[in-house]
């Protein structure tokens, strides 16, 4: 079964544990500025929204790459940057409509979420369940459950 990251912004408190987990997983350091998932704070609305790559099926970044450095991980479906091939031309960062693939000056390559090979560190670190890793075909399951609970199935007295 393919899984995908599922984000429920209503549950996010903005603690940035996901950003620390991501940077530690990929760079061995606690460093939100190296995180591939970012939490956005819409201060005046009181909303916090974690945001990262959604792993498009037909990915703009992958299509745009002139050197074929972005490949699909067969096990997870993640679009993964092969650093050895990447030349740092940044065309993918222009192609991506969502801004979730970015250049890293220090390495001269781009980085994006690769789902940590199937065990995303951000989801494991999230203390509130705002980030989960669920069946990719059923990201709406919990929402359906909530609405299902509101469906009134109580037997009615005969009119």
């Amino acid at each position, binding site marked *: 079964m393919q899984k995908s990251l599922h984000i429920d912004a209503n549950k996010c408190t903005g603690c940035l544990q996901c950003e620390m987990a991501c940077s530690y997983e990929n760079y061995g350091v606690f*460093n939100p500025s190296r995180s591939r998932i970012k939490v956005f704070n819409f201060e005046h609305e009181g909303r916090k929204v974690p945001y990262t790559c959604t792993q498009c099926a037909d990915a703009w970044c992958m299509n745009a790459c002139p050197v074929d450095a972005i490949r699909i991980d067969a096990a997870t479906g993640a679009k993964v940057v092969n650093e050895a091939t990447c030349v740092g031309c940044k065309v993918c960062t222009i192609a991506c409509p969502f801004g979730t693939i970015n250049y890293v000056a220090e390495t001269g390559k781009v980085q994006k979420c690769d789902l940590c090979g199937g065990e995303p560190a951000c989801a494991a670190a999230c203390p509130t369940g705002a980030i989960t890793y669920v069946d990719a075909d059923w990201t709406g399951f919990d929402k359906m459950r909530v609405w299902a609970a509101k469906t009134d199935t109580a037997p009615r007295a005969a009119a």
Partner: protein
Amino acid sequence: MGWTRKILRVDLTNGTCKSEPLNMEWAQQYLGQRGLATKYFVSEVDPKVDPLSPANKLIMTTGPLTGTAASTGGRYSVVTKGALTGAIACSNSGGFFGAELKFAGWDMIIFEGKSPKPVYLSIENDKAELKDASHLWGKTTWQTEEIIKKTHQDPQIRVCSIGRAGENGVLYACIVNDLHRAAGRSGVGAVMGSKNLKAVAVRGTLGVSGIKDFKAFLAATAAGKKVLAENAVTGQGLPKYGTQVLMNVINEIGALPTRNHRDVQFEEASKISAEAMYEKRPTDGKTHLVTNAACFGCTIACGRISRIDETHFSVVNKPEYWGASGGLEYEAAWALGAANGVGDLEALQFANMICNEDGMDPISFGATVGAAMELYELGILKKEDIGMEAPFGSAKALCELAQMTAKGEGFGKELGLGSARLCAKHGRPELSMGVKQQEFPAYDSRGIQGMGLAYATSNRGACHLRGYTVASEVLGIPVKTDPLVTEGKAALVKAFQDATAVFDSSGLCIFTSFAWGLPDIQPQIAAACEGDWSLEKLNEVGERIWNLERQFNLAAGFTAKDDDLPPRLKTEPAKTGPAKGLVNGIDKMKPEYYQLRGWDADGRPTGDTLKRLGL
């Protein structure tokens, strides 16, 4: 490791920024943050210094766990000689500024001297420079943060700054970071203002890599997070209701100081409680509370984000206050509310926003308004002195006075000096409800006896965050003690004070101590920091820090006489509630406390005590 091992020394007089290695010998003795910065401070500053003179220094400091994945590991502290108190000050703040400073590679910034003109410090990793802030002077903390981010074209910069209160010499001005978190008490913002330092803007992209044993650290922090999640207070109560959950609890036990401590129960407490934040307003059908929010790394998330009623008199035609904003927390809701007899939740939120926006400690501000209202009711202050009628319960006066104090207008100038100076000026010094010229927080020590001793002996003046025996006396953490008796409280206060000094020196938030004891943080510190960090050593470090602060205060001129409560709490019994008929038994607790501390009858650490602690 844990530390970045680097200090930034900023000479404001000469406009220079220099990097220095951290004194690692001191780090082993004082851990970090509160303890380590205090060691630097007392080693460099004359205890007799005028807090607002260039000779005073101001230190912004992180702990070894700041900027790590440890839950709540985002704290920073400001250490200086307090403008309000003249005592050692250490004010702690959450938000995201502290972690960012660490990510830029700094354990600490020491500010010295005074800039000839307004400046702000800009830090981008190892690059630090003072920049002109004349365009920021006169701006609020909210405007300052926005302008700095725009100027640098970098929305990811974290900012701490003073508002107009800090510029105008409000003696309880605070330093605000991330819009509504603050190094709140003792007037650290007034010291910053006296140095013409408007703000510190930090962008750090280096991260924290100096963890002694990452694997052990992740295991220890995961275990700690589990404890927080499974604890009723940190796992459920605080995220859902925030600290304000205490309003009804403390009112019921008769320890909610009301109308400048005339009463110990507030008849409108439920209207300003955490539960009230969830009630739909009749005007717009919305709840006051919008959501809870976390500081950096925090898995508790006690913070409140609220929205004021747009039709409330305080914000009519002021859309800049209509958005979601920080508050209310328990202390602010109490100080702006019960302390003045004001039960209008929206008015409290407005006054709280002014405190955030212009950088004032809402505890000292609210309690000073309470003192002014009592002077007004006694006929000592007249309508023409204040510029308005100001009886207890007046929400209009509260909102008006908040703005006047922040801007330094009219009677606001007097209020900005705090209740001790205000009451002394009008011939009634005994009506100032505080210790060492700092106002009490939200617990009446007639109903919670141990807090009387904690307040009287707190090194930074009256404070609930130096030894929170409320945990034991009211909530039963770690064990329940009777709040109405003095027996056993000396030992309880000492234990809380010493443990708190360790939490405050680690980079972690003291609120974790609702669930964590030192045995829970010890493995986290030991995995992050090189050296021996056994439980025994941490206990010793806590006691060492407490005595170091004490030594500074004694050298500054404080004596045992200053470890005392106002006469009201010692002679006017509580009128209602479970503590009815009781006064605080400070005189019974204090001698025992001095003895347990290894201090003489005058409250001075004995030679043996100093030697034992290596002081």
